[in-house]
């Protein structure tokens, strides 16, 4: 079969790829969206059962589409996310080729050759929208685990009953780790939560969702060229939030109240014992300080915006309660730990990308999503162009910016990000 021709190939039909599809379509640019599974594939196949978006429904805004239901302050469950993204694909008539797995992308001047398991494409420009969360970033020390302890990552985990009865160590204190620690502990499997640096936030502050504050005061719109330490901003752990009907805060204190035991960052596994860092006090102090700094920022904004009389007074939350002497070692078997859940984040999979665009750590070199290779663009990564880039709500503005750059490039005009 001869190569099919198109101007732009978008890889991935999640919210980011679809937003880009919509923005290039608006410019009349011929394109195709290649999707290995169904639309919203990762949401369908790689998430645990109880997961809900950590952003409220009103935050689900995409170019030419937004949440229109009757619960703007709620949080979508996975079925609703899949429906939402699917409806978006339909609404914008995105040219999605589902069930098409990209197996390689190579330079084929002028442009790229994209091989799939259903034939090849030749295109002038390419958009990488295959997501930031493809491969669980399980630390190497997982290999030192005793064989009789089940080791499971969060791409595989679905529900507490996937785990054997008995104690569970959850490694990672960000959004995923805290949510799983709670549901596993509630299932009757006592949980030890090992945490390093994390980002503590209240779900609701002064009567408003914390994301409402961050959006309203402009924090979410801070751009990649404004932020003080971009490297740090791109690697900061996910917000310690959960989406529930009661809008409760899920921080380490809430977990401690439920009986979850806190330990420091997992530093090693030796002789069937886990070793933890003695830095738990400091990572909790850092998280408290950073949360309070954020609350001060939004309080100052509220005063300036004249909102103080319309909402509850500013207040601060209890500092994180750290055990007096958190254990530094734990004999896993003696403590009854039967499984370990690695909530240690993800990295993207670019094993199919055969264009030399990687830095020494295997990350795609880019400037605000404009990849260091003419005609190649990146979407859906943390702080790609702005603080909200990794959220559904951030895809729209990134896609508009990058579609404009892409259109200029196709026309042989401007190259700046």
């Amino acid at each position, binding site marked *: 079969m001869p190569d099919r021709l198109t101007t732009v190939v978008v890889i991935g039909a999640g919210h980011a790829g679809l937003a880009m599809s919509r923005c290039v379509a608006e410019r009349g640019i011929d394109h195709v969206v290649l999707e290995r599974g169904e639309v919203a594939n990762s949401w369908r196949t790689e998430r645990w059962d109880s997961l809900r978006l950590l952003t409220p429904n009103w935050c689900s805004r995409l170019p030419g589409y937004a949440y229109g239901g009757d619960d703007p302050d709620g949080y979508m469950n996975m079925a609703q996310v899949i429906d939402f993204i699917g409806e978006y694909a339909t609404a914008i008539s995105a040219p999605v080729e589902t069930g098409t797995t990209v197996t390689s992308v190579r330079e084929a001047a002028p442009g790229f050759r994209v091989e799939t398991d259903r034939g090849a494409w030749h295109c002038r420009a390419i958009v990488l929208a295959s997501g930031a969360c493809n491969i669980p970033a399980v630390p190497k020390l997982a290999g030192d685990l005793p064989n009789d302890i089940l080791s499971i990552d969060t791409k595989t985990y679905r529900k507490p009953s996937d785990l054997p009865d008995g104690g569970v160590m959850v490694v990672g204190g960000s959004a995923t780790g805290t949510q799983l620690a709670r549901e596993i502990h509630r299932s009757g499997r006592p949980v030890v939560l090992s945490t390093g640096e994390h980002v503590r936030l209240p779900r609701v502050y002064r009567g408003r969702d914390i994301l409402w504050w961050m959006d309203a005061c402009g924090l979410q719109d801070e751009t990649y060229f404004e932020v003080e330490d971009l490297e740090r901003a791109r690697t900061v752990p996910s917000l310690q939030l959960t989406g529930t009907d009661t809008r409760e805060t899920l921080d380490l204190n809430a977990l401690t109240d439920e009986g979850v035991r806190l330990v420091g960052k997992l530093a*090693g596994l030796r002789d069937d014992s886990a*070793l933890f*860092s*003695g*830095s738990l006090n*400091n990572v909790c102090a*850092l998280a408290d*300080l950073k949360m309070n700094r954020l609350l001060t920022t939004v309080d100052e904004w509220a005063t300036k915006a004249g909102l103080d009389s319309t909402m509850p007074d500013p207040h601060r939350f209890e500092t994180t309660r750290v055990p007096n*002497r958190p254990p530094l070692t734990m004999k896993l078997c003696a403590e009854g730990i039967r499984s370990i859940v690695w909530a240690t984040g993800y990295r993207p999979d670019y094993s199919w990308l055969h264009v030399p665009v990687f830095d*020494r750590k295997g990350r795609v070199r880019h400037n605000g999503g404009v990849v260091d290779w003419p005609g190649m663009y990146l979407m859906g990564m943390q702080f790609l162009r702005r603080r909200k880039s990794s959220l559904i709500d951030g895809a729209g503005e990134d896609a508009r910016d990058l579609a404009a750059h892409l259109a200029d490039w196709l026309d042989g005009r401007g190259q700046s990000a």
Partner: protein
Amino acid sequence: MEPTEQTVDNGVNVGALLEAREALTAAPEAARFQWRANCEWKNGTHSHSSVESFFGLGEEQRHRKVFTFNSDHPELFASEDHGATPVEYVLVGLASCLTAGIAAVAQHRGIQLRLVKATIEGDMDVQGILGIDSDVRNGFDGINVSYQIDADASREDIEALVAQSQKRSAVFDIVTNPTNVSVTVK
């Protein structure tokens, strides 16, 4: 640069540190350092150590001069007390590392320091090192560092300084996390 930063002087050349960070980001192989010490037994528990050379920025480096350290144990251990105990050197290392970090972070954040004093205490049950009880560890069972800081900053900013200095401290990391140690005989 904000005007306040020009008047803040903690004696730390932050510009040079930031330039070094940039240069080492571009050439990470130059960031491989090796720190060294030599130690020679004198008598009893008394030993004499020195540091002079180290490796970094791709080549052999040298301190301005040789620094020497006597280490021994107090007389109540039936020793002659020619110097600080090794565990006290660890406390000195931790305190001086955190304190240097506080100065550097303060300079970077435009905070003038007037006084920084640390008291550091390491608690130890010597039943461990004396082999009396194998359930007692040899090392510290806890370390407390208490800072007294006078600076042009709010209490919260000062706490943030201290927290950040722990986050970036080599000795804090060495003390709080396990390290593979290989000891051989030539």
